[in-house]
């Protein structure tokens, strides 16, 4: 639907703005998680067809007439994989944040400047 495209796009913009302007490392990782949620909303909203139902065949949706009654099943399969991978990447980023805090005792990203030229 059009309104869900709009919500997804606004969530991506808010998450990108948080990643670019915040100084606390935990807030940057939260922005990354918000971008993930926005992208998944956008993908599922593209596969929706108005007036049709979920892609599971039982007494309500018979096998012969399934083509006219079901929503696209492919975006659901892609987003299922993407949600689990998003969790794995967030866990890895948080372990890096904990280790960085042990080294310099600060969570501000301006304190880590060994790689600046």
């Amino acid at each position, binding site marked *: 639907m059009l309104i869900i495209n709009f919500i997804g796009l606004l969530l991506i913009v808010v998450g990108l703005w948080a990643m670019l302007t915040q100084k606390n490392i935990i807030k940057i990782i939260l922005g990354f998680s918000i971008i993930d949620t926005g992208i998944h909303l956008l993908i599922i909203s593209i596969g*929706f067809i108005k007036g049709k139902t979920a892609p599971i065949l039982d007494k309500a949706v018979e096998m012969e007439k*399934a083509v006219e009654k*079901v929503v696209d099943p492919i975006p659901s*399969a892609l987003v299922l994989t993407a949600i689990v991978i998003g969790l794995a990447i967030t866990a890895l980023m948080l372990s890096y944040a904990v280790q960085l805090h042990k080294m310099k005792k600060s969570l501000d990203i301006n304190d880590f400047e060994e790689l600046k030229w």
Partner: protein
Amino acid sequence: MVKRFFVFLVLIIFIYQLLPLITNFKPNTELKHIANEYVESGPQKVGASNLVTSVVVTYRGLDTLGEIAVLFIATTGVGFVLKNKKEKKKTLRPASEILQTGTNFLLPLIFLFGIYVFVHGHLTPGGGFQGGVIITSGIVLLMLSNISFKLNHMVLNIVESLSGLSYVIMGILGLVLAAGFLDNGFISLGKFGTLFSAGAIPIIYSIIGFKVGSELTGIVEKMRK
């Protein structure tokens, strides 16, 4: 000041490039090309009632193999980065009585529900990933309500390694006995809509459920200590 101006410029270019998703959006009115093929001939060839399951396990099975590989790499990374050097002795308060009694009552039900979700993955909404996450949240409840709970690391490692190995062995059995890698036709497709239908899909989803559950438990355990 200059930095804020550049951030605004980047965001405005980004919105301008993605704006045709809202202004020129024509929603679909019927299924096209590949989706048509999957929905029409899926139930006969694969035999599962849940069409999303037949896409995830059989038609796009290599994507699921890649996702399991990414989960494994992330778990290895977390285990490698966080090292605990010294054992600290801290005194923790025991949990309150409501939490302990509630956990004793709810924990078998949570495990039973998780196993139900991934065994019936081809008939109802659900599957391996959802069932594995439910089992992990049951173990987290056990960690929070029982202070002296020690997880047996050897059992966790053995379960995770054996699950990964048997997933690849099922794929190779499909290659040798049926049409291709990760095909589910080497066990007979039974009656459509019962528990023992869709060939090897219940077995593959159970293996994925155990693997995801044990890996996420390993990540949470590493973050806790």
